[in-house]
């Protein structure tokens, strides 16, 4: 336990120290990369709540990333640029979409659940492609970043970075508290044995649905951050490759662990960055690496450091 806290402390210190260091060596690009990783780490953390602790293999988590991002984009399109409005609406919209998708999907299980979540996300993806007002296939440009007057200016890359880091840490803490609460106990119990959970008087459905909605809302926040990060929103954010990427971060890092999704996001995206700098055909190397990691790293990278929480 002490070792874990120590490792967390070192990691946070390194992340806090990153902006001055990269600016001092004149490589602001890395700040951009780190911010992108942190944003997608939030998405991975939220997926870990339902996938790792809840056992719900959602293959459509990118949907909420897209809903969050498009909410910011569409509100900006109609001239509402206040972040105080945009971000809560993005979170609520994602939560509502997750509620609708979850209400249907969680009735099914196993492979049907995987496919139905995938299909719903595909639906949203095609919706994004076919609405010409909001860019359709080409995507839409964000006219202005979300404005938080008096608090923070997102155009300042360092400030935006620290905000993202802060939100990422809050997400880690939130999920950690959640899974160790009574609610989380039921969720984990339903994952390990559905029948016994029912036998002691809990119906898993509402717990799973609540977790699904919380995860969707959290991922919606990541979507709002992502829209501000790239200034550009495309339907590709909701593509099934994106869902697969987020899923991979969780598995690679180690599911049902606190640090796993963050670790996975860093390793996967840094690897992508490294390989793509080396050759344009980086996916031909990444693909087999992913297969090998599934075959040999059964408990994920976090498994090297400590045993899984669940």
């Amino acid at each position, binding site marked *: 336990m002490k070792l874990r806290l120590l490792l967390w402390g070192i990691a946070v210190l390194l992340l806090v120290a990153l902006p001055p260091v990269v600016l001092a060596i004149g490589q602001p690009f890395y700040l951009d990369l780190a911010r992108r990783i942190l944003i997608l780490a939030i998405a991975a953390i939220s997926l870990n709540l339902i996938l790792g602790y809840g056992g719900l293999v959602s293959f459509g988590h990118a949907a909420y990333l897209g809903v969050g991002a498009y909410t910011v984009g569409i509100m900006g399109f109609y001239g509402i640029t206040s972040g105080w409005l945009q971000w809560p609406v993005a979170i609520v919209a994602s939560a509502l979409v997750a509620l609708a998708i979850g209400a249907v999907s969680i009735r099914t299980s196993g492979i049907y659940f995987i496919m139905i979540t995938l299909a719903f996300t595909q639906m949203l993806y095609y919706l994004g492609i076919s609405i010409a007002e909001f860019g359709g296939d080409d995507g839409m440009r964000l006219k202005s970043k979300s404005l938080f007057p008096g608090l923070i200016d997102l155009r300042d890359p360092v400030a935006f970075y620290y905000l993202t880091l802060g939100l990422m840490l809050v997400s880690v803490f939130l999920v950690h508290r959640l899974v160790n609460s009574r609610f989380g106990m039921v969720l984990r119990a339903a994952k390990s044995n559905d029948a016994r959970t029912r036998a002691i008087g809990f119906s898993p459905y509402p717990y799973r649905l609540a977790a699904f909605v919380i995860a969707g809302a959290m991922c919606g926040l990541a979507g709002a951050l992502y829209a501000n990060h790239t200034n550009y929103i495309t339907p590709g954010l909701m593509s099934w490759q994106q869902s697969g990427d987020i899923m991979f971060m969780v598995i690679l890092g180690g599911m049902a662990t606190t640090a796993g999704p963050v670790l996975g996001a860093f390793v996967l995206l840094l690897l992508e960055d490294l390989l793509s700098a080396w050759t344009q055909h980086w996916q031909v190397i990444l*693909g087999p690496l992913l297969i090998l990691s599934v075959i040999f790293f059964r408990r994920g990278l976090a498994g090297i450091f400590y045993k899984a929480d669940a």
Partner: protein
Amino acid sequence: MSFTLLFEQLLNGLQFGVTLFLMAAGLTLVFGIMNFINLAHGSLFMVGAYLALAAANWTGSYLLGAVLGLAGTLVVGMAVEIVALRTLYDRDHLDQVLATFGLILFFNELVAMIWGRAALFASVPPFLSGHIELFTGSSYPLYRAAIIVVGFAIALLLWWVVTRTRLGMLIRAGATNRTMVAALGVNIRLLYTVVFGFGAALAGLAGLLSGPIYNVQPGMGELILIQVFVVIVIGGIGSIRGALVGAIIVGVVDTLGRAFLKPLLGTLISPPAAESAGPALASMLIYLLMAVVLSFKPQGLFPAKG
């Protein structure tokens, strides 16, 4: 909306449905027998299309190209099964999804490295170009008609293999109880490889038939793969009969939706609104259909195991 147009679109739907069936049959067989979910099935579709195109250009003969393409996809499928997927049969679906996701990245990029990222043009062979007259005043492309015929012939062949041959008996036995089949002295590993190769060849066939109709390009397999998932979820995972029925339903609904939804909506709401809502709704139609089917029959229309 004239009758001729409706009839033509129905045939187009049937042709698309038959293509979906060729994909779905392999996927559902592999799932039914090995309990394995193969996302890379779409990659085999793509490999089939590319190999057949390359072989046809090389030999100068469409038929020879098709045969070589089929054989090539069979070999690629078996090789993938032996090298990568064999170890994953006992794992949970999550691991299988992720490993085959890695395979997709690999195959898409490999194809882009060899043939480039741009879409290639596959031509209809001369003996299948032209139209046939169905009834007075209506003609239909011969190539699409040929796909429908081939598709139903394959469906018949599959039915015969599964219900009337020794291999089919082993396949059905393997789907019911793997351990028992292995205990009776059947080489279950070999059976798995054969079934996987078989499914790969069917996907390759679907790919090479689709070549002249859709674009031959990297990532072409994933577009159809997700529709194939809808097919097997609607039909009931593991059931070949379900795959056939589901494929025809999805093919016809999708094609008719794309053709007629916009003008149909135009009569209900204002034409400009229909202009943007029509295509959006048309591309979401099969997913809505799936959600409706699942809410009434969570195991699909033809549940495989009773």
